[in-house]
């Protein structure tokens, strides 16, 4: 299908984009890469009055690196991460995730920040960024604030972003040399949205570990018991299975059927096994 009539503005600065979002009685949507937004407009799931294109704002496409952190502009593309054209704080995790995300033609335009801000439960970046303990910088007209990604995503397509705010930067702490990770995406076709998604990160030098399951009928799910098991390194599979089962059972707000509960358990165990190998 074709989109409904809409206005389009390519913002020339972040300030202009924020002003456009603040217009009264205008439903405005921010377009970063547009790879979900335009599809939703074509399907008429989204019919905004105004599209504010931020894809080429220099402050949103830059990447800077400090000793312990990489700061990604929200409009860095999946392909730039896949091709390692930007620094990688994750010792290979983020490039591997990018490579399996949708298709190259999508990855050339789709963005890290767009994916996080949309918070599709089956998308890769929300789960991966939470597993890496990343944070999101949110700009409003009057103030800028930072939110940890694990708090940023609040539900299915729901985030802490207000309608007149823009996600500008994602900062990702660097893993240390000894860190290990595991990543499992279960999908029936390459590039499709995940049926289940699990990420395990273990960084003993920083005293950090986290196991996250995505595509899980809500915001990405941090598995606390599984995470505690992951810290140690040597993984007891029977203990890991029961920890994962307990974590999935504790997520009382999720409606897993047996098939999906099993998919999530298998994905989590495989990711933990990789991270603890």
């Amino acid at each position, binding site marked *: *299908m*074709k*989109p*409904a*009539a*809409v*206005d*389009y503005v*390519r913002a020339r600065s972040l300030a202009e984009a924020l002003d456009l979002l603040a217009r009264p009685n205008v439903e405005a949507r921010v*377009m970063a890469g*547009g*790879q979900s937004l*335009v*599809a939703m*407009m*074509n*399907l008429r799931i989204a019919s905004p009055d105004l*599209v504010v*294109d931020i*894809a080429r704002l220099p402050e949103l496409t830059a990447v800077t690196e400090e000793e312990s952190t990489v700061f990604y502009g929200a409009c860095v593309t999946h*392909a730039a991460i896949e091709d390692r054209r930007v620094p990688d704080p994750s010792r290979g995790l983020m490039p591997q995730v990018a490579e399996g995300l*949708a*298709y*190259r*033609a*999508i990855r*050339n*335009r789709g963005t890290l920040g767009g994916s996080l801000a949309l918070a599709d439960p089956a998308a890769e970046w929300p789960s991966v960024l939470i597993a890496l303990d990343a944070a999101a910088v949110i700009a409003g007209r009057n103030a800028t604030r930072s939110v940890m990604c694990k708090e940023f995503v609040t539900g299915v397509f729901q985030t802490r972003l207000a309608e007149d705010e823009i996600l500008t930067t994602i900062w990702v702490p660097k893993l240390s040399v000894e860190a290990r990770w595991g990543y499992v995406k279960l999908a029936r*076709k*390459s*590039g*499709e949205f995940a049926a289940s998604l699990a990420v395990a990160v273990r960084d003993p030098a920083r005293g950090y570990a986290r196991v996250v399951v995505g595509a899980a009928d809500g915001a990405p799910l941090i598995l606390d018991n599984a995470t505690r098991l992951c810290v140690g390194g040597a993984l007891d599979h029977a203990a890991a299975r029961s920890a994962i089962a307990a974590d999935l059972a504790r997520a009382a707000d999720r409606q897993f059927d047996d098939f999906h509960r099993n998919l999530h358990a298998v994905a989590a165990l495989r990711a933990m096994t990789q991270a603890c190998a």
Partner: protein
Amino acid sequence: MSRVRFRLNGADLAEDVASRLSLADLLRDRHNLTATHLGCEHGVCGACTVLIDGEPARSCLTLAAACDEREVESLEGLVADPIIAALRDSFHRRHAVQCGFCTPGMLISARDLIRRGRADSEAEIRAGLAGNLCRCTGYTNIVSAIAEAAVALGPVEGRRT
């Protein structure tokens, strides 16, 4: 309406477009560049794949208005491209075409796989074609045609070492 200045298949253009117009509809309806096919119109089928600033992109998921100061190439603009020429030859000889609907998108994606050095094995080619649906061939002849073109071309600029 939005004013767009862009380069299309080597020609510099400036035109007014309705903001909701997709790049695919601009190419097909205004410029009669009908190699760009519209299948699903939500980014899944790959038939509308073109090059924007030299990289494959879905013209159904690209607003024409967002192409201001971009370079767009459709398959028609790649007639003289050496990788496309090799693919045209191998698709022809291997009968990698049945109805032909997916073919323009297949050619543009295949060119990109070869250019990026991602066409070195059958598995790699199949993974790289996941975003281009063919409902006729079962892919076998398409995959072998791309593999053959990759071998015939040898090392390509930008190819993975």
